């Protein structure tokens, strides 16, 4: 076997196809933690990673939340960015073309205030260069009186159906962990046509400055992410994996390859690295490298042999 063959075998070892999206590694970036990808190009070879999931995109530009937007917590962080983004048209006009220079699937994370907005976003993004859309259904839903789409099976389903009717692209649905029954949510979106499920978004949290007697975040509450949430995320991936057929993209506190492998054993077909990008800007790449070493050292021939293999 030539060196070339060895290399290509090693690369094959990690390649996966999630909801029809071919990826060189099962390691993606988590939305909102990797900008539009370009911001990380000095640290990561974008041509070598699984997929870039870009920052949450909305129909109109948004300036996000006021005041302090992040807070550090034990082994985690809170964020309340508030979906700051340039809007989908600007994304299509100026950002997507620049991403076209890279050989990496681009998945666009979208957020709407209404079911129709999700549909409209999906329709506009149904273009070459976009590999798929990821529905962020954990943002406040104006029409439904402030109840998030992500915490109600029926409204989650209707968003998914609307999006499926408006796009030919694979549709990934990202679920909120702030629910009593994650399995019911997953089953509902699968039933509605989701091609894959991302788990988990952030957990709602709050920090208070005890000197100022004020919330640390300008927005009062924020989303908890990072290593602190990993056990909750792994549990949800495992529960959902028992109940759905579509692939799961696992995330929540992945910093190392070991973390990623834990998610895959629990049932994730791919993983995403979020907060860890802030700690180690090369994290997406080093997690993938570590998975490759593990697969090889375990005598497996392909990373997919790990998926769901936790032995209960």
């Amino acid at each position: 076997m030539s060196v070339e063959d060895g290399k290509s075998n090693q690369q094959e070892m990690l390649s996966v196809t999630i909801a029809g999206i071919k990826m060189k590694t099962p390691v993606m970036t988590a939305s909102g933690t990797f900008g539009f990808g370009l911001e990380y190009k000095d640290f990561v070879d974008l041509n070598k990673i699984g997929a870039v999931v870009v920052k949450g995109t909305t129909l109109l530009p948004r300036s996000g939340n006021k005041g302090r937007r992040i807070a550090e917590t034990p082994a985690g962080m809170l964020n309340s960015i508030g979906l700051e983004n340039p809007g989908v048209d600007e994304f299509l006009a100026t950002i997507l073309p620049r991403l076209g220079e890279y050989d990496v699937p681009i998945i666009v994370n979208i957020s709407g205030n209404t079911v129709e907005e999700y549909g409209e976003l999906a329709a506009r993004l149904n273009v070459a260069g976009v590999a798929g859309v990821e529905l962020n259904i954990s943002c406040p839903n104006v029409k439904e009186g402030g109840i998030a789409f992500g915490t109600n099976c029926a409204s989650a389903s209707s968003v998914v159906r609307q999006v499926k009717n408006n796009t030919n692209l694979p549709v990934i649905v990202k679920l909120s962990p702030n629910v009593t029954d994650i399995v019911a949510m997953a089953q509902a979106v699968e039933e509605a046509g989701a091609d894959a499920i991302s788990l988990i978004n952030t957990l709602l949290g709050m920090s208070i400055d005890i000197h100022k007697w004020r919330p640390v975040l300008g927005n009062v509450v924020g989303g908890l992410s990072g290593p602190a949430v990993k056990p909750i995320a792994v549990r949800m991936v495992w529960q959902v994996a028992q109940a759905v057929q579509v692939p799961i993209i696992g995330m929540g506190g992945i910093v190392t390859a070991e973390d990623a492998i834990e998610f895959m054993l629990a049932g994730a077909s791919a993983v995403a690295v979020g907060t860890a990008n802030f700690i180690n800007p090369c994290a997406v790449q080093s997690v993938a490298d570590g998975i490759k070493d593990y697969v090889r050292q375990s005598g497996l021939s392909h990373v997919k042999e790990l998926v769901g293999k936790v032995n209960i």
Partner: protein
Amino acid sequence: MPKMVVDGRIVSNTEISVNVKELVLYAPEIAAQAVPGQFLHVRVANSYHPLLRRPLSISSADNIAGTVRTIYRVVGQGTACLAALSSKDSVNCMGPLGNGFAIHGQRPLLVGGGMGLAPLMFLAGALCPRPIEIVMGGRTKEEMFWKDMFHVMCNTIHVTTDDGTLGSRGVTLDVLPDLLKNGAFDMIYTCGPRVMMEGIVKLAKEYDIPCQVSLEDYMACGIGGCLSCTCAGNDGSRKKVCTEGPVFWAQEVMP
């Protein structure tokens, strides 16, 4: 100019005033690239708690020795971790990050408050041999260790302290009107507390002198990827302090 992440060996990490330390890191790749106004994003501990990096201005870079220097105040958990390190340790750093100062103007006035003097030090070095005038403010004499550090680089140093223990009693803003009236400055550089900078920008406008400000904000990624640090630009857009700043022209981001 590519950004990097390197393990910088600690050359020294010495206390230079009460709760203020000077860290010298051997990081030749960063030292070679850094310009005044840029910062490092430092992993203060190989731990999940503190989890995030800490942004620290580059106070000087020695391209020949391959070292960069930061001067930091120990204020919380992260800087305390950093303060505990010693010369056998190394520390993971991203850098050089952000946009630096525009080195225009022949008669620069620098105005720094507290730890805001850290990036101005690197700037003063780069402005030499132009005649530099600097106003530095702090709460009390102990905070004005800066005076000796700027001494060789500056023609004139004005010191203000809140309690009057060094220089004139008051704040930097108090001495500025007279200086601007009499001087012929063609550029103002400022870094310090928000209120101070706002006052300076107002005066600069009044005297029609271009002004550059160095902002601070809470940062996660440091490279434009998370949007935790954005501020409102005057053109209605959001500006990322980490990549579009920390140095801005006053008119871009100040009222």
